[in-house]
């Protein structure tokens, strides 16, 4: 196994009295799809947000390509080549698809107008359209506000945005939760395609058949710590569900850095 691309070590994050992460570990290897699974409240979204710069962890260490990094803001994550599809999609509903695609990284007009702060809406629309076409996201009108679009289209925009800008890792927090059968198929195909193009994909999902279909590895989070790691093909769905619910423990593949469930790491 190569060096991990991204390693989280002993991440602790509390919200008031709620300890969402209690020393969670997590690894992402290059060019893999790793599923992060766990029951509701296991801390999956919190872990992702900690690695995406939305939350700042209270304790713990993040290594990127072997060196320690700090991710204080979404900009820090972006500089490392990490992009995220959030569960709530984080789209500005009143803006159009192109504007959302380029939110925070607007293309400026050439020359003096650009220096004066004018943005090149045409270029952004054209580039967005290209990205949507390549990723199979069907939009009738790219100049319409996102608010007028269906759940699947919104999801498509959020996913397109993340995979377009990511150069190393894409986090996807329940990317198929709001989707129909065909659209789910598209997203799953997209995940493997993105992986084949050299990115690492972290898939957060409740849907076991989906996880078993696309994930190369599975990491299980329970009560804010990692309780198990599996390789696809070496584990049954029952075992994964068992690890998620606490029915089975000590299934960790790598016993050296196994976390004890419920252990409180300072």
């Amino acid at each position, binding site marked *: 196994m190569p060096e991990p691309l991204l390693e989280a070590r002993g991440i602790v994050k509390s919200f008031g009295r709620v300890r969402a992460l209690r020393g969670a570990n997590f690894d992402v290897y290059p060019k893999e799809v790793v599923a992060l699974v766990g029951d509701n409240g296991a801390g999956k979204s919190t872990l992702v947000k900690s690695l*995406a710069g*939305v939350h700042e962890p209270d304790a713990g260490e993040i290594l990127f390509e072997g060196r320690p990094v700090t991710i204080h*803001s*979404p*900009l820090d994550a*972006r500089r490392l080549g990490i992009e*995220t599809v*959030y569960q*709530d*999609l*984080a*789209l*500005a*509903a*009143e*803006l159009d698809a192109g*504007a959302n695609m380029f*939110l*925070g*990284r*607007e293309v*400026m007009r050439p020359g003096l107008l650009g220096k*004066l*702060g*004018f*943005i090149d809406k045409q270029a952004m629309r*054209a*580039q967005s*359209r*290209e*990205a949507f*076409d*390549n*990723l199979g996201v069907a*939009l*009738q*009108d*790219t*100049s*319409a*506000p996102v*608010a*007028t*679009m*269906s759940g699947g289209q919104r999801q498509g925009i959020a996913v397109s945005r993340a*995979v*377009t*800008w*990511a*150069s190393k890792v894409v986090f996807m927090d329940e990317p198929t939760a709001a989707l129909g059968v065909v659209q789910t198929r598209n997203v799953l195909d997209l995940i493997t395609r*993105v992986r084949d*193009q*050299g*990115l690492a994909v972290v898939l957060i999902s409740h849907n076991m058949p989906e996880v078993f279909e696309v994930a190369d590895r599975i990491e299980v989070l329970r009560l804010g710590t990692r309780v198990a790691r599996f390789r696809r093909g070496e584990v049954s769905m029952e075992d994964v569900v068992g690890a998620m619910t606490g029915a089975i423990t000590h299934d960790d593949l790598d016993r050296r850095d196994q976390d004890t469930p419920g252990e409180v790491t300072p």
Partner: protein
Amino acid sequence: MTDVTTTPADEPEVEAEEAVREVPFWQRLVSGSATWVGLILVGLIVVFSLLKPDSFLSSANFRNIATDAAVLLVLATGMTYVIITAGIDLSVGAVLVFSGVVSAKAMNATGGNDWGVIILGLVVALAAGFGWGLINGFLVAKGRIPPLIVTLGTLGMSLGAALVITGGVDEREVPFKLITTIGIGRAFNQIPWLVIIAFAVALVFGVILAGTRFGRYTYAVGSNEEAARRAGIAVDLHLIKVYALAGTLSGLAGFLSLARFSTTTIGAHDTDNLQAIAAVVIGGTSLFGGIGTMLGTVFGVFIPAVLNNGFIIVGVQAFWQQIAVGAVLIGAVYLDQLRRRSQDQR
């Protein structure tokens, strides 16, 4: 953009799709709320013109309407930005008064009747407005206090400070040159400078809102603050800038008011804030943020102004204007709600 997924598509194909997917300009124009507000304004003008062709439909009368609306247009320009961020600024009228007072004091303390003094007065007014706007923005963005409360607080503070400075008595003296030029002067003997300045302000900030990154971020922050933050936009800083802009424009409005009335008119601006908010909302800007245009605001400023003027000319009691504007305001917000509801049903 990384080259992971964006292999260039065939150019002709993209061109062909563009025609299908882009809603034509005229269609967007028809569906835009600013267009409807503009039609209402035109309708009002037509009705009053038919009723009283010689007195309403004259350049002198239009000049009156525009002059009366000029100061409000400057306030509403800043208010448009604030409301698009899903905020509100109740302090604009009070900041206008404060800025006028310190500006007049500064000019009178310096003395003289030349452009140097006038420019000093302008700078002082702008700086005073900027200061209050900065306080508003900082408290809203960093203090996380609701804008309604912050600006209600600074409304009281700035108006109180203006009263403390003047002892409650209007400063009745401003450089004569200011009155004869900006105050009552006209370009080419036709268009009042006040009107030109107000429209220039609306135009410049309308273009910035529609075309620049600053404008785009204003919409983004109002549409989904958290999404903007996750996209790496410095949301707090942007909010501070927007409130500072609204404050600065209130300062400019204070200076223009000073030029027009040659006195600080301390007691005459109690409802300026509500008038500005009404104008912006009538113009199609959503109180929930993320939606709005400067063109709509211009129409929204002129609908009450035309109603007021028209009612007087056709002999209806001017008090009816307040009733009519109130109804238009409620109608505008109702339409905004309908639009949002129909979108949410998707």
